[in-house]
């Protein structure tokens, strides 16, 4: 168990190092003068020279890499040329809102995909299965941003079922404590605002969840089919267990082991996909922030956002790895099966690589 945690911790450090290296490379592949990019398009010659010195761009690359590591370790992600504020402050302010959106999308994802996957596997080949597979097929093929625009055009603009954009109705506000509108509304004891915030959250969250629902449904369906064909299912039946118990306590409980890994990785991917969703629905968040930064050529802001999303992604995966200890007893104590467990996760990781959107 300890060796498993140590191994995962080591992996996490490795991936973090990889992420930082990749973002460092982003500062290096710039066409033209990185100092000018850091200082901004309209900077004076002195400002550009100042940036060059401050960032150590006149020094050799390895030295720059070390000082970059040092700055990132201190949480210094550079200064936004657009807002003229530290990138870390800007991102810190918008991140909670993205976390709120991702959380809502994840809840929708689980609430839809788990029943769909289970029913689909249990009623293989029947109507429910075909419906679930159709959902999976469509969800995996529809562009997120397009789905968002279409839902907005029809459900909001045309039929007025949902608000068009924003976090709250016009003129409404709640005291910002956490930066998540729903939570802040509850903290303020304002139930009307809470309902309003949920109403605003619904379409963006559904949009964000759609493609992930497809992946989870599909994966759960196939792992569930494997589980339901296992001998221990027949054994459970032979003791007189009800079908509910057989399917949930035995089938789903086993299928959850790989499925939870996928859900964990999806947390990170969802945060990445906010890039495609937030700006459509006029939401504040790290995704909308990075899109704006791209449009404004605000390179350090873009790289900062990449770094923050990457770190959240890596932390989420680590937490899910720890969750595996609880879900998969074979990992807890060493034993003959350990090797098999490691191979399984490798296979899953690949599966996921193919599924990322």
């Amino acid at each position, binding site marked *: 168990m300890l060796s498993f945690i140590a191994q995962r911790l080591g992996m996490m450090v490795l991936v973090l190092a990889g992420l930082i290296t990749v973002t460092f490379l982003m500062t290096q592949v710039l066409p033209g003068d990185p100092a000018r990019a850091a200082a901004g398009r309209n900077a004076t010659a002195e400002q550009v020279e100042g940036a060059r010195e401050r960032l150590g761009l006149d020094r050799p690359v390895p030295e720059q890499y070390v000082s970059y590591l040092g700055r990132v370790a201190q949480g210094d992600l550079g200064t936004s040329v657009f807002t003229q504020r530290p990138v870390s402050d800007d991102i810190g302010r918008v991140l909670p809102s993205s976390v709120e959106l991702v959380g809502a999308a994840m809840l929708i994802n689980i609430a839809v995909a788990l029943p769909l996957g289970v029913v689909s596997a249990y009623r293989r080949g029947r109507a429910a299965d075909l419906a679930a597979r159709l959902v999976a097929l469509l969800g995996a093929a529809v562009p997120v941003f397009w789905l968002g625009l279409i839902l907005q055009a029809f459900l909001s603009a045309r039929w007025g079922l949902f608000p068009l954009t924003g976090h709250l109705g016009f003129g409404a506000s709640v005291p910002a404590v956490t930066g998540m509108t729903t939570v802040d509304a509850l903290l303020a004891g304002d139930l009307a605002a809470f309902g309003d915030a949920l109403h605003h959250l619904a379409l963006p969250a559904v949009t964000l969840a759609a493609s992930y629902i497809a992946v989870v449904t599909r994966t759960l369906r196939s792992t569930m089919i494997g589980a339901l064909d*296992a*001998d*221990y299912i*027949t*054994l*459970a*039946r*032979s*003791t*007189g*267990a*009800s079908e509910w*118990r057989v399917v949930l*306590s*035995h089938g789903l*409980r*086993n299928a959850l*082991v790989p499925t939870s890994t996928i859900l964990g990785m999806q947390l990170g991917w969802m945060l990445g996909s906010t890039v495609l969703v937030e700006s459509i629905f006029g939401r504040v968040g790290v995704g909308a922030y990075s899109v704006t930064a791209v449009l404004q050529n605000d390179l350090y802001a873009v790289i900062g956002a990449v770094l923050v999303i990457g770190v959240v992604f890596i932390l989420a995966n680590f937490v899910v790895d720890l969750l595996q200890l609880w*879900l*998969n*007893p*074979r990992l*807890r*104590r060493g*034993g*003959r*099966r350990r090797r098999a467990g490691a191979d399984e996760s490798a296979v899953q990781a690949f599966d996921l690589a193919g599924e990322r959107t």
Partner: protein
Amino acid sequence: MSAHPTQGSPLLDIRGLTVSYPTPQGPAQVVRGVDLAVAPGERVALVGESGSGKSVTARSVLRLDPDARTGGRILLEGEDVLEMTPREVRRVRGARAGLVFQDPLASLNPVKTVGWQITQPLRIRGVGRREARRRAVDLLGRLGVADPDRRFDDHPHQFSGGMRQRVVIAIAVIAEPRLLIADEPTTALDVRVQAQVLELMEDLARERGMAVLLITHDLGIVAGFARRVAVMRHGLIVEEADVDRLYASPSHPYTRSLLDAVPRIGDAPGRRLGAPVPATTEGEAL
């Protein structure tokens, strides 16, 4: 074939059982009219090679295969299992007839503790957690699992093959069924452990007055265990006799060929003595 006279009315009475499966080429008839009776407390062996229909016959008693199309009657304590509603079948499973599977590696749920799995047949019938645990620990101890109270909370992967099969037996018998169906219970185990497991099942059956229907492809393990043997081939019972008579003078050529496959070194008939010729792939572990 002579219906063997048994004392009183039989516990299990299979009459004219047919089983077929739908395939794209039309229904495949796997069991073609089997008659077999097991008296209370009796130990009967159903022998045949892979594909003879013996496992399908055994599973039909608990109606474990939803795809199977069945005909005939399976009377368990006088009630026809094939006529029961799903709810009634669930009440039979585990409580009136228990099943032991051939592959202890695959038949235990890897993510649940063995204790949880053993107590399930009791828990789903309303026995309290503490009482269920007490009875499971007793049973594990009785089945020769050392330190059963501690092993109760272990997971299947922490048990050896023989120990796992004891756990599977515990699951099958904890709700005290009057009939135990053992489907190739020793095939996946190594030879030394095979003898132990058979002996445990025999002792347990004696103590509880429990009848056992042993399904196997290996006549070598039958002799010391069952009094009566039915030999099955191509979905039919081709010979049924007392074990001694069968060994001494098999009347059907197929029975003779099965007997020839049993290695005899020294003092037969007893426990199996040598490694069997692996006639099937059924025992392949995962």
